[in-house]
């Protein structure tokens, strides 16, 4: 088999040595640096980079309960695997578990959840699944049947964000880690420039977000290239699910993604440079941030009277699916009467049970 490979790809037959260990034969070209390295060195640089990102940014404290947002896709599968590895190897002392959201998309989520369930057994991490049906009374299939394929991603995005928080609160997690990788963040920086969204532009490169909220989220893969994540999953033969969501033919984001890939082809470093630019943008600190309050109906953090999920849900239940889509100004009509949260720090430290999860048929 070796011989066959060698003759088919003469490039590999040169037998170059790994540029890191100088002992084994180089097996791959590292996407980030184009160094030719062997598999073992790739594993270690990939993991060590994530480790140093975690340490340098003080992402976790010992004893924290951390939810790994697991969709069954490549990013979250590698994240779950690497987090459990690093947790053991470097004694983070974290109590890890998998948290999945079941949107109720037949032919997509049911299959990917099977993957997550296999990972639960393989990595020995407990799994919690929260479903849209339980939380909101609607599955995505039902929503799409009602409103069609337009704006359905708005519902899904808003609901998922809250579902993760609710699931994490229910499991008494201190933090959520998500599998957003460097490509995702570079793409978000770019999209925010294209849209003129300066507030999001300033936030989107933060490694930890929502620190003033109940459960902060962080992105240990902030500097990890998508290609390397795929490569890692490929060589480690990790079990992941790789189908696109059947409801998401999103051309705009795809277009920006294509551009990022083209940039990476010319200069791999460009992805890191975009993130660096995003971090270094001189954004005036006086930029007004929305005031945080809580939703009067479900108690979730919201800058409006009703949180976005409750607003969308009300639209669904009353047969007005346009409610809450598009600009919020005026639609909620209560912007000025935001109930101020007395003390954010108090909430994040206090018992998470105080989040009124029960109000939504929980």
């Amino acid at each position, binding site marked *: 088999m070796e011989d066959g490979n060698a003759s088919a790809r003469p490039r590999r037959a040169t037998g170059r040595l790994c540029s890191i260990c100088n002992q084994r034969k180089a097996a791959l070209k590292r996407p980030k640096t184009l160094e030719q390295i062997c598999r073992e060195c790739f594993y270690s640089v990939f993991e060590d980079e994530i480790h140093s990102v975690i340490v340098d940014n003080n992402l976790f404290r010992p004893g924290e309960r951390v939810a790994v947002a697991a969709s069954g896709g490549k990013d979250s599968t590698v994240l779950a695997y690497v987090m459990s590895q690093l947790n053991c190897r470097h004694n983070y002392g974290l109590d890890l578990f998998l948290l999945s959201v079941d949107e109720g998309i037949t032919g997509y989520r049911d299959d990917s959840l099977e993957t997550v369930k296999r990972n639960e057994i393989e990595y020995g991490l407990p799994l919690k699944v929260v479903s849209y049906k339980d939380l909101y009374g609607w599955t995505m299939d039902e929503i799409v049947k009602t409103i069609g394929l337009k704006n359905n991603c708005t519902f899904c995005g808003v609901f998922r964000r809250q579902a993760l928080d609710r699931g994490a609160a229910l499991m008494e997690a201190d933090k959520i880690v998500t599998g957003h990788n460097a490509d995702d963040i570079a793409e978000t*920086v*770019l999209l*925010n*420039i*294209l*849209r*003129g*969204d*300066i*507030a*999001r*532009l300033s936030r989107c490169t933060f490694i930890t977000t929502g620190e003033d909220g109940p459960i902060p989220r962080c992105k240990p893969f902030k500097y990890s290239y998508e290609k390397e994540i795929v490569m890692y999953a490929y060589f480690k033969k990790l079990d992941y699910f790789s189908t696109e969501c059947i409801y998401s033919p999103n051309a705009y984001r795809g*277009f920006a993604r294509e*551009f990022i890939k*083209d*940039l990476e082809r*010319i*200069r791999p*470093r*460009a992805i*890191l*440079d*975009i993130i*660096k*630019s*995003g*971090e*270094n*943008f*001189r*954004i*005036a600190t006086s*930029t*007004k941030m*929305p005031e945080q309050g809580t939703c009067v109906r479900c108690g979730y953090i919201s*800058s409006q009277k009703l949180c976005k999920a409750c607003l969308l849900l009300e639209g669904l239940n009353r047969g007005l699916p346009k409610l809450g889509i*598009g*600009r*919020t*100004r005026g639609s909620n009509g209560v912007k000025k009467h935001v109930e101020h949260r007395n003390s954010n720090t108090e909430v994040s430290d206090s018992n998470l049970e105080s989040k009124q999860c029960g109000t939504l048929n929980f």
Partner: protein
Amino acid sequence: MASCGGGVGACHQSHCQRSEEDGGAEEEAREMASVSVDSCAAGGGDLVRCPKCGEEAAAKGGPRVLNGMCPSCFHAHLFGKFKLAVTTNAMISPTDKVLVAFSGGPASRVALQFIHEMQCKSLESWDASKSQALPVFSVGVVFIDESIISVNPSNDINKTIEEIRPIVSPLSPPHKDLHVATIENICSMNCNDGKTKLKKLLDSVPDATGKEDLLEYLRMHLLQKIALDNGYNKLVLGSCTSTLACHVISATAKGQGYSLPADVQYVDARWEVPVVLPLHDCVTEELKMLCHLDGMETLQLLKKPSNSINSLISSFISHLRDENPSRERTIVRTAEKLKPFGFNKFVEDKYHEFLPSRLRCKFQNTSNSESALAEVFCPLCGSPLSEPELQSVSDIQEKSHTAVEVFTAHCCESCSFQILPKEPVSLQQFYSILPQPMTRRVTGSTLDHSMLRELIGDCLLVDDYDNDGT
């Protein structure tokens, strides 16, 4: 935000409020669309009226242009944008000697035309005024011949001058001096020597993008040199919204996010001869259209096909423009929301205090506290260095002695990656042929000291003589 142009200030406000949901770009597009729809409706039936002057476009014999405007209103519309940029940023004052950088493309052609029109108007008022107290600013034109790096280098500079002169000479009175230089002049005034030096310099940069960028920086230095040598005190560039939008994305992709706001303002006074961008608010399509309508001659510039980041980005931007014509404006506006630097506006100088208030330039509020801070600039691209970069400069400065080391330390991370050669030998060579204006930019006691040391190095007996000095 205070130093952004007054013309777009109002839009900034509404954007900030809106930014919670989708960006305001879509709304902008809708506004634009609705204008053109309104104009059609106002005309009623077949009669299409220009929304500005009310004349029927057909009567004037011209095609309808942007938003149904007739050609003369379109000209006035663009000139208005230009004039607004000039006046709100105090770009040109009566005593100025202004140098217009003319590349032959539509943007700089329009800039030249508009500057000429402005000059004519102020000449008229000078003639009409009794006191004739207010002088008329003078204008010169510079063209830089870059045929050496184009696909088919033509060695005849006289031919280029022949092409440029018929464009510039009709723009008088008032008379405009024409300066023509070749890009290799930045390396050496001797033509052949300059050519070999420039080739060597560009060849030592392996990265295609880095090569293009270095050439651009060299061009800027040459423009500065010509302006200084001939006593100009303002340099007008034809950078328009579209070029700035490309710059925003490419600077982001090159990791220059910190220094980006310095490049997208109306005024850039970090150079010895301040640079102004009066076409900041016009997009390429408009400028091309105006050149076409008014019959302004432009030069056909052959662009070398390249696989650089810059060309990838310009095709990306043109793709975005096809999808939404106001996208370029949104991109530039995003960058304008970033905090500009102190040198991005003119500050009042003594001269203006003697003018009657009516004639004084309108300066913006100089309340920005940062204006007092002196920035350290990358000697290659001229971008101000960020905090961590400055930190590493001082770290390296402590250890290094040679001029090359100090120079390398002062380069921004982006230039270090894409322009500076990696091997010490080629780096030394690169530094030695780099034009003086670039190497001279690195100032500071350490460099002066080390330069002195190099001069007297052969006479020094003790090696670490200057250790306590640094």
